[in-house]
C-alpha cells in the first residue's frame, strides 16, 4: 500500500464518520460542520489518489477539482450559517423543525 491509498482510506473514514454525525447530531452547527468534514473526506480521497502517477508530480486535474470543491464548500457554509441563525431567531432553537407537519 502506498501513501496515496493510506490517505485515501483516511478520507473514507472521515466521510463515514461525518455522515454518522450529520444524521445523529441535532444542533445545526454540528450538522453544517459534519458536511464540511464530509467534504474534506471526499476531497482527500480524490486528491490522494492523484498521487498514483509514475512521476514525482501528482496529476493536476483532481487537485484542480479539489480546489474548486473547497471554494464551493465555503460558499455553502456561509449560506448555511446565515440560515441557521435565522432559524434560531424564528423558532428559538438552532435545530431542524420536526419533519412531519401533516
Amino acid at each position, binding site marked *: 500500500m502506498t501513501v496515496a491509498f493510506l490517505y485515501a482510506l483516511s478520507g473514507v473514514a472521515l*466521510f463515514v464518520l461525518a455522515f454518522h454525525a450529520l444524521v445523529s447530531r441535532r444542533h445545526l452547527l454540528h450538522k453544517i460542520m459534519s458536511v464540511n468534514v464530509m467534504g474534506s473526506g471526499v476531497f482527500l480521497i480524490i486528491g490522494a489518489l492523484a498521487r498514483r502517477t509514475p512521476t514525482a508530480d501528482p*496529476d493536476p486535474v483532481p487537485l484542480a477539482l479539489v480546489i474548486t470543491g473547497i471554494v464551493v464548500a465555503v460558499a455553502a457554509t456561509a449560506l448555511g450559517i*446565515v440560515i441557521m441563525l435565522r432559524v434560531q431567531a424564528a423558532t428559538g432553537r438552532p435545530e431542524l423543525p420536526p419533519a412531519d407537519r401533516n
Partner: protein
Amino acid sequence: MSRAPSRAVLWLLLLTLGGGLGWAVLSLPPVAQGLGEQVRQHLQVSGVESPVTAVLLNFRGYDTLLEIAVLALATVAIWSVATMPRRRRGLAGPVLVFFVQVLVPFMVLLAGYLLWSGSHAEGGAFQAGVVLAAAALLVILAGAPLPAGAGGWPLRVGLMLGLLVFLGVGVLVTTTGRNFLELPPAWAGGLILMIEAAAAISIGASLALAFRGGRPRNARAGS
C-alpha cells in the same frame, strides 16, 4: 436526516458505505497516468507554468467560471436572507489599530504576490482572495465602519467583478472566431492574470461580507 432511523439500520448503512468505499479505493490500480501527461503537453500554450493553474483557469476554465458564479450566488442568497446584525462596538485598541495599519498594506501586497506567483508556482486567485478577505476582516474587527454607500454600486461591482471579467474575457475572444473561453496562446498569460485579479477581489469581498452575515443595512433591500 430527519426521521432518525433506528440505530441498527444506521450502523448497517455506515458499514456498507465504509466497506464499499474502501473496497472501491483499494481496487484501483496502484499506478495511473490520469490526464497529467496531456496537461504537461499543452502547458506551453496555456499561458501559465503551474499545471494546477492551467487546469483551473484555462483547460477547465468553464468550471471555474461557474464556481465563481456559486460564490456570487452565496452573497446574493445571504443578502436576501438576512441583514447585517448591528455591531455594538469594534475591538478597537491601540495594539489592534497598529496591527491594522501595518498588516493590512502588507496583506494586500501578499495577495498581489500570490496572484503573480500562481502563474508559475503555487498560489492563485483563491489564495489571494482569502488574504484580501482576511485583511478586510482585520479592518472590520478593528471597528472601522463600512464606508458610506458601501451597500451601493461600488461594493456590488466588487462582488460581481470576478464573474463579469471572466464572462467578458470569454465572450471577447469569440470575436476572433474562437470558441467561448478559448484564450489565444500569445495572450493567455495576461488574460489569466486579469481574470485572477478580478476573481481575487470578488472572492475577498464575498468572504469578508459573508463573515458579516447579511446585507449592509444601508443597501437597497432588493439585493
